């Protein structure tokens, strides 16, 4: 289980398949937003402000989904010991953190006109905030560890534990909020909104997959460059001495 890491050497080809997928993802996003905005009636309390839900809620769902990706690829890395899997897990974590930030920002934009405050400690928003912090910790760890093998192994451990905690955090925050009954985000079950939400959920999923893929490709390119430099240093003359 603890054998050496298999190095990622080749840079990925920039396949036109992924570029096509990217166009498709963004097109579906535009289309879903259009459908949702046009077909849903204004909310009786919030009016057209309700439509921010079509971005805020799918972003929140993606934020919950992305740690699952981190979990899967962290576990895959521990099994395969291939650097690619570690880099993919890290790419997923970065994209997840971005979606978390987006969710929080949109939540605040919604909260201000609705409740008059920038932040409500509602269950979804608060869980997302905690998740954002867990991801920030994961990324900080990667930034502070230079040795590649150590970084991959530690990230896998931290990523797995963090991912395990996501449902627990969500549950405990929701209990906390129901006990204390604070104002919450608008319901997502009103049938008038379901179509718009479902369409946008899929669109966001496609966009997220595309973003993770591109981030992963960038990491692979960087890694290939590093490896080429190391190879040259090994075959060539003296490198600088390390004690």
């Amino acid at each position, binding site marked *: *289980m*603890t054998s050496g890491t298999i190095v990622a050497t080749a840079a990925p080809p920039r396949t036109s398949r992924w570029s096509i997928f990217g166009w498709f993802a963004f097109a579906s996003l535009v289309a879903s937003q259009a459908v949702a905005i046009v077909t849903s009636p204004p909310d009786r309390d919030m009016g057209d402000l309700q439509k921010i839900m079509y971005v805020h809620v799918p972003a929140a769902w993606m934020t919950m989904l992305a740690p699952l990706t981190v979990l899967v690829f962290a576990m895959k890395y*521990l099994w395969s010991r291939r650097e690619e899997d570690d880099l993919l897990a890290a790419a997923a974590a970065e994209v997840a953190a971005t979606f978390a930030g987006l969710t929080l920002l949109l939540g605040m934009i919604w909260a201000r006109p609705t409740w008059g405050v920038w932040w409500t400690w509602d269950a979804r928003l608060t869980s997302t905030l*905690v998740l954002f*912090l*867990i991801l*920030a*910790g994961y990324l*900080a*760890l990667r930034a*502070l*560890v230079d*040795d590649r*093998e*150590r970084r991959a*192994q*530690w990230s*896998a*451990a*931290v990523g*797995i*534990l*963090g991912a*395990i*905690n996501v449902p*627990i*955090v969500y*549950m*405990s*925050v929701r*209990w*906390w909020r129901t*006990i204390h009954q604070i104002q919450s985000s608008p319901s997502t079950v009103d049938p008038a909104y379901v179509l718009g939400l479902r369409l946008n959920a899929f669109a966001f999923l496609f966009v997220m997959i595309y973003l993770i893929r591109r981030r992963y490709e960038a990491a692979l390119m960087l890694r290939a460059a590093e490896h080429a430099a190391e190879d040259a240093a090994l075959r060539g003359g003296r490198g600088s001495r390390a004690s």
Partner: protein
Amino acid sequence: MALRDEWRRARAIAWKDLTAERRSKAAFNSVIALAVTILVMFGFALGPDAQAIRDAAPGAIWLAALFAGVLAFNRSYQMELDGGALEQLLLYPGSRRMIFAGKLLANFALVASMLAIVVALGIVLFQVRIPAEWPALVAILFFGCVGLVTLGTFYAALASRSRAREVLLPLLLFPMLVPVLIAAVDATKALLGGNLLGDAGAWARLLAAFDIIFLVASFLAFELVIEV
């Protein structure tokens, strides 16, 4: 039998940690001092209105324990790093997970003692009335402490060996402890407020589940963080 050997090694490590601690008292004294200081600062920040600080007592107690705990966890690995003892520790036969088990036991003894002192002081400073259900309160404190020490011992194994360790440990640990903090503070509040609606029971079950899940997960994953 191999299991007996492993358990003996874990006990040896726990004994070693506690003996070294008992002699130098460096960690114990500074951890207690920090916890007490934080508690007192909370008193100043939230008081002096009696009702306000009584309401804030559970939160202040647990936060003091969390911040002081970070000190204890990093120190637990510091003693291995100072003289290069960690490498020798890694060379002994048997599973490296016993290092986690031993340090977990030692840290629990240390942090539980600290928590007891903080709670006692909190009851005094924050004018809290000791509830009739104090055994339930002790159970909550126990489960919360286990969760804190489990994750603290785990994350300190890597934070103590990274750059910016003072920042990295809280950054990694505190978000992971949100369920513990929520459950422990709310359950403590419920018990101190004489709330018998079963809130405390539900929180206790959450804490126990959290403890079991992360005891197992940390134990299994420890090899990954200590060996490299």
